[in-house]
C-alpha cells in the first residue's frame, strides 16, 4: 500500500527547562510552616482544618495560614515573606 504523508496538526510546545527543587528539611519540629490557600473554592476551609490539626497534634511546629493574592498569577510579596520567615510550605488545594 502506498505511504501517505500529511501535515501535523499540533502546535509548537514550549521548551522544557529544568527547575530545581529545594532540599528537604531534616525535621519539621521547631520549624515554621506556611499553609498557603490558593483561593479555589473551599481551600480556605481546608487550610483552616490543616492548621487545626497541627495545633492539636504537632504544637512544636508553628503554622500560619496565608492567602495567595490571585491564584492565576505569581505573588512575589507572599513568596518573599515565606522565604524570609518560613522553613517550608503546604500550598493548595488544586481543584
Amino acid at each position, binding site marked *: *500500500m*502506498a*505511504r*501517505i*504523508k*500529511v*501535515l*501535523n*496538526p*499540533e*502546535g*509548537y*510546545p*514550549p*521548551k*522544557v*527547562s*529544568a*527547575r*530545581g*527543587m*529545594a*532540599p*528537604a*528539611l*531534616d*525535621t*519539621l519540629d521547631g520549624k515554621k510552616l506556611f499553609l498557603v490557600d490558593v*483561593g*479555589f*473554592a*473551599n*481551600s480556605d*476551609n*481546608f487550610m*483552616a*482544618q*490543616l492548621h*487545626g*490539626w497541627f495545633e492539636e*497534634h504537632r504544637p512544636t511546629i508553628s503554622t500560619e495560614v496565608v492567602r495567595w*493574592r*490571585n*491564584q*492565576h498569577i*505569581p505573588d512575589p510579596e507572599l*513568596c*518573599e515573606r*515565606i*522565604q524570609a520567615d*518560613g*522553613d*517550608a*510550605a*503546604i*500550598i*493548595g*488545594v*488544586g*481543584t
Partner: protein
Amino acid sequence: MDLESRYGVPTVGVHVHVFAHLVRNTVRTNGMPSARQAFVPTPLMNTSPTGLREYVEGNDPIHGRPFMAEVFDQLTRAVPNDELRGEDWDRSTPRYIEADGEEEMHALFQERRYTDFLPIVLPTEERVERMLTGTSHAPDEMVGKLRPTIGMEHWHFDVEKVAVNAVMAGAAPEHFPVILALASSGDTGRQSSMSSMGNMVLVNGPIRHEIGMNSGIGALGPYNHANSAIGRSFGLLSQNLQGGSVPGETYAGSQGCNFSYNCITFAENEEASPWEPYHVQYGYEQDQSAVTVSYIWGNVWAEYLRTYWEEKLQAMISGLEPGMGCTLVLDPIVAREFCERGLDTKQKLAEWIHENVRIPQRRFWDHVMLNLIHEEVEAGVEPWATYWNAPPDELIPVYETSRVNIVVAGGETNGHFSIFQGSPMRAKFRTNKGKNATVSIDDWR
C-alpha cells in the same frame, strides 16, 4: 513550583485526587518531575469542615497512605541530586506524519486525539496549500498562542498550523480569515474547566454574506456549511494547537459540553435587528467584519414577550450564576417586542436587566463569584465591596450591564429567544490581556 525553584522553600502542593495525572503532566512539562505532591479525595468544593478534617486525617488516595504522613515524608525525605536538579527534555513535534494508507492515517489521527472522533479531511500538502489561498498572510507567520486553561502552558502556532486544522474540519479557503481571527483571539474552544463550558462564536460584518453564513432560520443549527465548518475548525484547532484536550490530562470538565462539537457558531442577523450589531458596540464600524468568542454553559428559552414578560425574564435570569455573565440570543420578532416596550437599544435592555433582576446577597456570593473577584473585593473596588458588605437579605443586581450580551439571530418563524449562561471571558483572565474579546476578521484576509 516557584516557591521551590525561585525561593528555595520546600513546598508540598495539595491537589484533589482526580487530577493526579494532570498534576504529574504539569510538573513534568515545567521541568520539575519530582515536585512534592500530596492528594486528598474529590470533591473539595462543597465539603463540610467535618469532611475536610476527615480528608486531613484520612488517606492520600494516590499514595495510599495517611495524608499527613505523606506530607511529612515529602518535606523531610532526602531527594536524590538528579531529581533536585529538575529535568529538561526535547518535545518538538515533526512537521509531517506518515502512514501506510488513508485508513491507517485516519486511525492514527483518532488514536492521537487530533479529531473530535468524527471523520476528518486528511490535511495533505495540496489541501493545506489550497486553504492558504484564503489569506494574504505567510504560512510561517506566527498567529498566536493557546492553552487549555489558566495556569497551564501556552503552545504557539503559525498560519500553516491553523490551515491544517481548518482542512481537517472541512472548511473552505473563504472561511479561513474567520478561522485565523478565532485562532488569534487567545480564546480556546476546548477550555479545561471542571464546570464543563462550551463556546459561542458570533460573526458580524460583511463577511457573513461573502461566505454565505446563516443568521436566519436555523442559524444555530446544522444547516449551513460555513457555520458548521468554522465552528468545527475552532474546536479542532483549539485542541491541537494548545497541547491537547484529553480527559484527565488537558481537559477536566466533569460532564463535558455538547456545545463543543460546533462551538455554537453563527452570524448575527444585523439586517433584521432593530439595534446596532454586536461588534459595533465594541468599537467596530458596521462595514468591518469581526468575531467574538464567548464561554457558555447552557440556556433557558421562551417564546415571545407575553403578558408577564417581566416576571418571566426575572425568573429566567435570576436562576443563572452571577459570576459568568449572560447572553441573550433573540429572534428579530422578540427584539422588536422589546422596542415596543421602550427598550429600543441593547443598552436599555441591559440596564433593565441590571435594575430589575436581583437576588439576595447571600445567594449572590454562594458560588465561585468570590473566587473570580476576590482581589477587587479586598481592594474595595465597587460595586463588589458594597455587594460583599450588604446584609444577607439585601437584593443585589445579578449582572452589571457590561456582563449582559445581546445578539439577534433567527428567521422570524417564531418569537423564540434563548438566554445562555456565559459571556466573553473577563479581561483579567484572557490570554490576550488588555485586548477586546471581539477581534478583527479583516486583519486576516
